[in-house]
């Protein structure tokens, strides 16, 4: 299980100044930890699409934002992502709570469509991604910052299990 503080440690090594987003059950502890962190400003939004506009403005203003949201909100935010971070070529790392991933396993029962559509949508929108399933995957988060900067594009880390 990944601890929220491990993610914040990566953020700090990468010079993250602002975390913009909307909480979910998977990243709940990360939001709580950021509320008490004086080094990274948490900006909460009412709907996930706003987060990409805010993050794009932060980056143009010289800050280094990350976006935190759930897959449901990511699906809702498509045009905002397209029209801001993608069209403005903003290097941006987003962490996406992968609600329902377990429901995709064979024989799991009712499938959560928020999980079904996430990866096909990421691929369709041209957003490269990795999965942050455990502490051993934390280097992927570090690499996402480097790759998004190099490519001047958004990249995503999917988080399938609730953070500790």
């Amino acid at each position, binding site marked *: 299980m990944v601890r929220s503080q491990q993610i914040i440690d990566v953020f700090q090594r990468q010079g993250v100044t602002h975390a913009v987003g909307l909480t979910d059950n998977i990243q709940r502890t990360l939001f709580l930890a950021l509320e008490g962190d004086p080094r990274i400003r948490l900006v909460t939004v009412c709907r996930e*699409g706003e987060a990409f506009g*805010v993050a794009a*403005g932060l980056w*143009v203003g*010289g800050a280094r934002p990350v976006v935190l949201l759930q897959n449901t909100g990511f699906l809702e935010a498509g045009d*905002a992502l397209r029209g801001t971070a993608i069209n403005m070529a903003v290097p941006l790392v987003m962490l996406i709570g992968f609600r329902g991933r377990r429901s995709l396993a064979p024989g799991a029962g009712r499938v959560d469509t928020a999980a079904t559509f996430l990866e096909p949508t990421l691929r369709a929108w041209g957003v490269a991604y990795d999965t942050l399933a455990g502490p051993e995957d934390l280097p992927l988060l570090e690499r996402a910052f480097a790759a998004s900067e190099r490519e001047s594009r958004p990249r995503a880390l999917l988080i399938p299990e609730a953070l500790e």
Partner: protein
Amino acid sequence: MLRREDVVRRMLALRTEEVVVTTQGTVVPWGIISKHPRDFASHDSAMGHTADFALGLALARPDLRVWVFNGDGSLLMSLGTLVTIAAAAPPNLVHFVFDNGVYEVTGNQPVPGGGSLDYAGMARAAGTRCVFAFDDPADLAEALPEALRAEGPVFIALRVALEEQSAQSRRPDHPVPSLRMTLAEEAHRLRGELGGVRS
């Protein structure tokens, strides 16, 4: 009732070093008269998210004032942004809404509730620190300088007359300099202008 062209000319006369973000119906009227390097045309972007973008700029650069010229149709697409801005409480953000009651660039179809919505009331209810509403040129002329100096977030609703404007495309020979670039080029240019390019 205000005329948009008069309003933007009045704003231009008061503008010093502010970052000015335009969208929809204000991109061309402002871009024709202002050639400032801190102008940003949020065009070919995501309708409804220009105020979000301006909020990000204001948070990143608390040493600068940021003005955003929003449209009523755009604001209606993301009304929650009023709450987001009020909660983030940037003292340096001034959010204008040009309320003409229609989607102008698609041929003046009415926005839902067009002509009867109280945008200033919405901003006030969302918790915006400082709210103004103008529909009279003389009132605007008298109060605008003070409104622009107020500690933000500031919200200014402007009831403007219906006009006609066709849809614009970014192209190399566009009379508005910002629209000669791609949105990415414009975003990276402004980042450089604001000194945000990392070494």
